[in-house]
């Protein structure tokens, strides 16, 4: 049961990285687009789907909260600051996007909306990177009583408890890596939504630029992770890890091919495969540990909710997904219709 719930967790997280990631990346990509037409086009593409894309995050939270409550509270306690940062960025981003779209006479504010939207689109994935770094790090045992952690008492060290695990070169690199990855995913998705050869060439340039930065930052993350003993590179020889690496390589290869042949969906599936490979590598490196707290790490097994809860959670998730997925397909299909097409 716990494994099945974990599978749903992974699915929801993957969906969030692909759809929500493309969405955040859209904000970063927007900052690099050279002319207003493309920016407007990007805004138009994101508008109908961004809210639905973000519900995957709520799915992740709810599954953690119901299925692995100690992990949910553990993460939110240990990683209080980066989670708060991500939340504020999500709030600012959603609000600015909507206000920019609906403000009938924005005047000077339109610039403010745009800057805030783009900045928060970059801050949120950066904060996610800090959170991932925090998940890969060891956390010291917390004193259990509130009084023991009050400033000034023995054994209290705010930095050690609440900052050190998600801060440092490794964590910052993780943040930059995820921001670059999201921008890369967004650029690939956006390619299929522009139609002139000129614009497509502009987007391809950005795909390669973001891909290169993702690649370099990814390498830096692995290296610093190895040096700080957060990512054991030796584990990379595990069969699952090797298959993830192969999947990533295959995704890269097919992406380049698809760009050459201008195959929109092949590009999207390739980038999806790459995201899956990255997440797969992360999860298998961490399995079955969810949060490395001293003295005993929280795992899929020791942190799972009672069987009856997991049973109903899984039943609920199956029902919900069988309802949501067809509707999401309808939503995306309705809005895939390009500008030139007559309305159905």
């Amino acid at each position, binding site marked *: 049961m716990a494994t099945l719930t974990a599978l749903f967790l992974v699915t929801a997280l993957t969906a969030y990285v692909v759809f929500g990631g493309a969405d955040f990346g859209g904000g970063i990509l927007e900052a690099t687009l050279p002319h207003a037409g493309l920016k407007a086009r990007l805004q138009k593409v994101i508008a*109908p*789907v961004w*809210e*639905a894309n*973000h*519900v995957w995050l*709520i*799915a992740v*939270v*709810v599954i953690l*909260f*119901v*299925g692995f*409550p100690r992990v*949910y*509270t*553990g*993460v*939110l*306690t240990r990683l*209080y600051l980066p*989670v*708060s940062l991500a*939340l*504020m960025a999500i*709030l600012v981003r*959603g*609000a600015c*996007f*909507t*206000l920019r*779209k*609906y*403000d*009938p*006479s924005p005047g000077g504010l339109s610039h403010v909306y745009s800057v805030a939207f783009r900045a928060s689109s970059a801050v949120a994935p950066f904060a996610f990177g800090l959170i991932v770094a925090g998940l890969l790090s060891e956390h010291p045992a*917390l004193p259990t009583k*509130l009084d023991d*952690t009050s400033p000034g008492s023995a054994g209290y060290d*705010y930095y050690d408890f*609440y900052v050190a695990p998600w801060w440092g070169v490794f964590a910052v690199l993780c943040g930059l890596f995820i921001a670059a990855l999201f921008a890369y995913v967004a650029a690939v998705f956006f390619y299929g939504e522009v139609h002139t050869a000129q614009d497509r060439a502009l987007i391809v340039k950005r795909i390669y630029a973001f891909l290169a930065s993702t690649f370099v930052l990814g390498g830096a993350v692995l290296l610093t992770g190895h040096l700080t003993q957060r990512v054991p590179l030796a584990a990379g020889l595990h069969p699952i890890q090797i298959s993830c690496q192969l999947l990533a390589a295959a995704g890269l290869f097919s992406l380049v091919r698809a760009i050459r042949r201008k195959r929109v969906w092949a590009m999207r599936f390739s980038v999806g495969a790459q995201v899956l490979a990255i997440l797969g590598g992360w999860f298998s490196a961490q399995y079955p540990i969810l949060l490395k707290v001293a003295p005993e790490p929280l795992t899929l097994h020791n942190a799972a*909710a*009672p069987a*009856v*809860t997991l049973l*109903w*959670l899984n039943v*609920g998730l199956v*029902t*919900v997904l069988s309802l*949501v997925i067809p*509707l*999401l397909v*309808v*939503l995306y299909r*309705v*809005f895939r*219709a390009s500008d030139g097409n007559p*309305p*159905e």
Partner: protein
Amino acid sequence: MTELSWARSSMALSLGFHIIFASVSMVLPFFMACAHRHYLKTGSTTHLRLTHAWAKGAAVLFATGAVSGTALSFQLGLLWPGFMVHAGPIIGMPFSLEGAAFFLEAIFFGLFIYGWDRLSPRAHFASGVMVGVCGLASGILVVAANAWMNSPAGFVWENGQASEIQPWVAMFNRAWPLQAAHMLTAAVQATSFAAAGLHAFGLLHKGLKPGPAELHRAALRIILPFAVVSSLCQPILGDLSAKAIAVRQPEKLAAMEAHYHTASGAGLYVGGWVDEQAETVRLGVQIPYALSFLAHGDPSAEVIGLDRFARQDRPPVLITHLAFQVMVLLGTLLAGVSVVWLFARKFKRAWLDARWFMRLLSLLTPAGFLALEAGWIVTEVGRQPWILYHVIRTKDAVTNVPGQSITFLAIGLLYAVLFVMTFLVLARIFAAEQAKSTLEAQL
């Protein structure tokens, strides 16, 4: 202030902020659907404009509600890990279902807003209705979780751990049906009076062109029946809620009524100021026997007072009592206006278009929301010092992470800016839609 007080303030602020946007996104879609249906049947351009105008308002409010709701799903854990770690496996069911309902709501909303020329009229209309249906469902489900905090069920509590968990029993706890009905009615009431107030305000404008005038009148014809029906039901639901609380959470009722001393034939305080030190109400008017009658349906019944509870188990009385009085006062006012509207509809139709009635409605714009916020203050503050009634204390649930005052200030600043910006843009949409309807009427 202690870390606990800061954390509670952060939570109150976030919930108080979110509830406004959540309520509107439950109710406004139904107004929208009514206008849309009228347009589809008659082809009235006024109703088409009205549908667009409301849809734009709903889009802005819905987005703010969506992001603040996402933030809340984290904040519960950021602020109250000592509660959430136990609550998840027990009351997670309605949370998961609420998430699902919200997911569907977001999808249907996307389809409605952007589907004007991409969906068949029937599918498009249906998606608009579904936004409201899913919104209502998510509201009902999330109230189940709050009701469980007032009326814990579905587990056995021993040595600080829950066992024998029954998720469905927890979800179908005894407080749920009434609390959900009370809240939904409040959402309808608050949203419809707020919307009616804005349109009445529009009508008061000197030199109003025929286009916008017709737009506002059409809006009022749709909204006011919602406002009236909900406002007339609400006192009944409120009375039933108070009766249920009298049995289930007597200290909450006692705090609401500032009823310190257990007594038979207890009187009801109207107005006045609670002196928590002296345990009395100053300058209040007391209606004899009324509390016993309202709480138990019998003027001589015994009403349990705060004296039956140790001091550390009592909720704050002043805030609870004040918030309760504000809620009841505003609820009575809205019910009174509703009666006037019904009377005018039957006997004095000229009143319905009179400037004084429009002035009255526009004055009442915030009344429903103030009552709704006051009601949530009653239920939340009145449950203190417990986060899970008689099981977990709020002070044992709060996070270990220091620096809660900074979190509060950051959230406060962010929400203040968002609030101002959102309503600024709504005002601009209002003006722009008026201008468009002027143009349309000239064509």
